């Protein structure tokens, strides 16, 4: 090669060297061959697919209900259907009204320890109460009795109203204190611990007063609902026999 050809060749070599220097600066094992490029493309596609995988959310505004039937397209039949459907609606509305409580009723949130006195759907009074602790008492001495101190959930009603109630202590009360269970029934009665009033709602559960008002708002009872003195007076005056009680 002579003169200018040699220079041109040298410059070409230098230029190729500059371009390939980038490649040759990468360690040999990482240089992207065709498999590397395929891997990159695969990862990109996988990434896009992963981005599109999961739950896609949109505002829930659409109608999404399967109907049991469709209205007739025949005008005469349609008018008949309309009359029937309107009549059916009135019947159903009345039936639903019958199911809902009317007048005064009590709602108790046993987890948050709140009692609500309701009248015709409106809250007229709210009080802090105490519900069941959830604690477990296992009777010892080889006996298998076990008590769980939960307040039951469900619908109940006031079955009995008692002024100045006397507590007839059940067996667990003696077991809990490590005392023998008395054979004489008179030894079970305890005076003054239930407050001024008690509203029984079944299976031994009551709404009653307490000596431990500082613990109201906490789940401390053996299943009954405790109220403070003033709140108990308000509930007593507003809640007649048969009043529904809902506990959740």
């Amino acid at each position, binding site marked *: 090669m002579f003169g200018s050809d040699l220079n041109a060749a040298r410059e070409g070599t230098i230029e190729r060297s500059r371009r390939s220097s980038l490649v040759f600066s990468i360690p040999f094992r990482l240089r992207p061959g065709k498999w590397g490029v395929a891997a990159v493309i695969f990862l990109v596609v996988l990434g896009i*697919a992963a981005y*599109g*995988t*999961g*739950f*896609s*959310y*949109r*505002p*829930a505004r*659409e*109608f*999404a*209900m*399967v*109907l*049991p039937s*469709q*209205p007739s397209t025949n005008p005469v039949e*349609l*008018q008949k259907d*309309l009359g029937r*459907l*309107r009549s*059916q*609606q009135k019947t*159903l*509305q009345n*039936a*639903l*009204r019958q*199911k*809902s*409580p*009317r007048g005064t009723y009590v*709602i108790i*949130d046993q*987890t*948050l320890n709140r009692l609500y006195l309701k009248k*015709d*759907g409106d809250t007229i009074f709210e009080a802090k109460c105490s519900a069941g*602790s*959830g*604690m*477990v*008492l296992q009777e*010892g001495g080889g006996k298998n009795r076990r008590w769980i101190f939960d307040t039951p959930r469900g*619908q109940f009603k006031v079955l009995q109203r008692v002024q100045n109630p006397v507590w007839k202590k059940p067996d667990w009360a003696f077991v*809990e*204190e*490590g*005392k*023998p269970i008395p054979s004489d029934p008179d030894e079970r009665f305890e005076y003054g611990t239930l407050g001024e009033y008690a509203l029984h709602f079944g299976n031994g559960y009551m709404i009653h007063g307490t000596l431990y008002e500082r*613990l109201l*708002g*906490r*789940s*401390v009872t053996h299943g009954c609902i405790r109220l403070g003195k003033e709140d108990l007076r308000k509930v007593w005056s507003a809640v007649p026999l048969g009043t529904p009680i*809902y506990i*959740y």
Partner: protein
Amino acid sequence: MRATGLAPQLVASLAVSAALSSLAAGGATNPRSEARGLIVQNEILKKQIELASQDSFVLVLDPARETLALMLKGAVLRTYRVSHVEIGDPRVAFVSRGETLDWQGKIWSKGHLVPPRQQDRIEIVPPPPGAGEDAAAEPPVPPTPEERYPVPRRYGIRFAEGLFLEILPLGDSGGGLGDRIAAWWEDLREVTRAEPTDRLRLRLSLRQGDSEALYRSLPPDTKLLALPPD
């Protein structure tokens, strides 16, 4: 219409029915549309009567009125204000694998909290018999409900038929990057199962107080009824 003596959810349901009826009397709407509306309302009323006849707790979701009501035997126990009701379809690589047709007007059953509310039962250890008058130990003062039941930032209620009701506090930004990655990974695992547990998700935003109260108070095996739009 103001109907005294009735729970708010019932008032809403009856108000819509009354509106439809009055429109029918005035002849102001297409009769076929009116008939369709009546069919919808009557189906909802039937479902509500069915639920009010059972001993089950029910959540009634009304997206149009933005309320979620906990009910038992036709009585509204508590109403939670809801914002931003969203519906989520499971999808894999942008292809939907969900069923969104009939989540309204249908009873979803056996709702349970995810993660579950932990309940540690303390066992009372009675003193030995004859130990004496003062031997019974003073039981410990239990924690408040707020202390006893910490509420996760996000939680849900999973129903047996494949609906997951996700509850978010209002204004929730999704948490930090780690939280979002963890949530995305859980979603990915869920939708790529051969048989996904969640065929459909509803996402609700509740105020902080309501969100916490719902988590702490939700009874087990609660049912759900979602109302259609008016």
